């Protein structure tokens, strides 16, 4: 899923300062799972901003609504019935959600309340880690289901650097050595010989450098 964190409240207040009628729009998908922009967080942020406005003696209207998904037009369109009441939307969607709402309502400023972070896995309650870079050319089957690009601090494709100690990365002592994990996994499968292959440098053109990526599925289109 896509992970995100709320921006500092001071930054949010600065961004919404010019506006008098603000909709705080949450998203019930990825950012709800990572406790950044779901219904609860949307309510908390809206309540905090209303209190801040009252303390400053500002006459502003701050209301809230959480969509199931901000990145899908069929859900964004639910704002149609109320969007005219506002002169700005403070979105707790990820970057894709913010842009989907902005695309749908180009005449209204859509302000991001979150910093979108990474494609993450929920490791445990309250802990998310990045384990996919979305490179567009998945090689996980070679590496025992561990991505060396996302999880090795040096992004090495052809074996460990030799700097890890007791299975811990020398760059970041909080990170397990991805290559130690890869080797242990491949040993489990009795497939260590896969590492004898030399993997060429990653072709990053599948990820970046040609504008926004696009997936077209004609069988899914109207």
């Amino acid at each position, binding site marked *: 899923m896509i992970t995100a964190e709320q921006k500092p*409240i001071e930054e949010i207040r600065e961004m919404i300062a010019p506006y008098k009628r603000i909709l705080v729009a949450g998203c019930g998908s990825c950012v709800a799972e990572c406790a950044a922009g779901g219904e609860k967080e949307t309510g908390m942020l809206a309540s905090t901003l209303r209190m801040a406005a009252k*303390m400053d003696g500002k006459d502003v209207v701050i209301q809230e609504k959480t969509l199931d998904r901000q990145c899908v037009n069929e859900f964004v369109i639910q704002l149609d019935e109320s969007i005219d009441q506002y002169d700005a939307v403070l979105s707790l969607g990820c970057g894709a959600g913010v842009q989907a709402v902005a695309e749908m309502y180009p005449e209204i400023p859509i302000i991001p309340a979150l910093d979108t972070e990474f494609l993450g896995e929920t490791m445990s309650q309250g802990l998310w880690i990045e384990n996919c870079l979305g490179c567009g050319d998945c090689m996980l089957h070679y590496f025992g289901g561990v991505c060396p690009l996302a999880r090795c601090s040096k992004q090495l494709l052809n074996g460990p650097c030799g700097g890890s100690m007791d299975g811990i990365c020398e760059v970041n002592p909080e990170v397990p050595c991805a290559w130690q994990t890869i080797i242990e996994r491949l040993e489990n499968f009795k497939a260590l010989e896969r590492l004898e292959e030399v993997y060429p440098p990653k072709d990053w053109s599948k990820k970046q450098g040609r504008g926004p990526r696009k997936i077209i599925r004609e069988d899914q289109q109207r």
Partner: protein
Amino acid sequence: MTSDKKPVLALFYCQNTHASGEDERQALEQKYGDSLKLFPIPCSGRLEPLHLLKALEDFADAGYVITCPEGACRYFEGNLRAKKRVERTREMIKSIGLEEERIGFLINSKEGPKPLTDLADEIMDRLANLPPSPVLGPSVQGRATGSRQRSKGDKV
């Protein structure tokens, strides 16, 4: 800032904590009247930051939660969660310049558990000199009545 008006406390308490039944609740309501709004919850782990924020936004000068002693939660970790959520809420109100003392929690004692009435007294004493909340204008102060009044949402 000084005021003769007594602070209004929104008090959330775990119904499993010692001596926190209907008799204690009624005694507190009689003693403190509109200055104390009681919110019994089945476990302090049910508390969300939003409950405290809404109370501060709508009617309360302070919001507190009473939890069972550590290691004595009927649901194992509800009180630990409540503590973290209170801390989170304190950070949030601090970020907008509101005194963090307006949010707090009290853990009942494991060795000598006190009844709800004593714990509420302790909190009310602690808040006796708390100035009125800058969030609540004069027209808002004292508008909540009844111990179980819920704050109204502002959803569209």
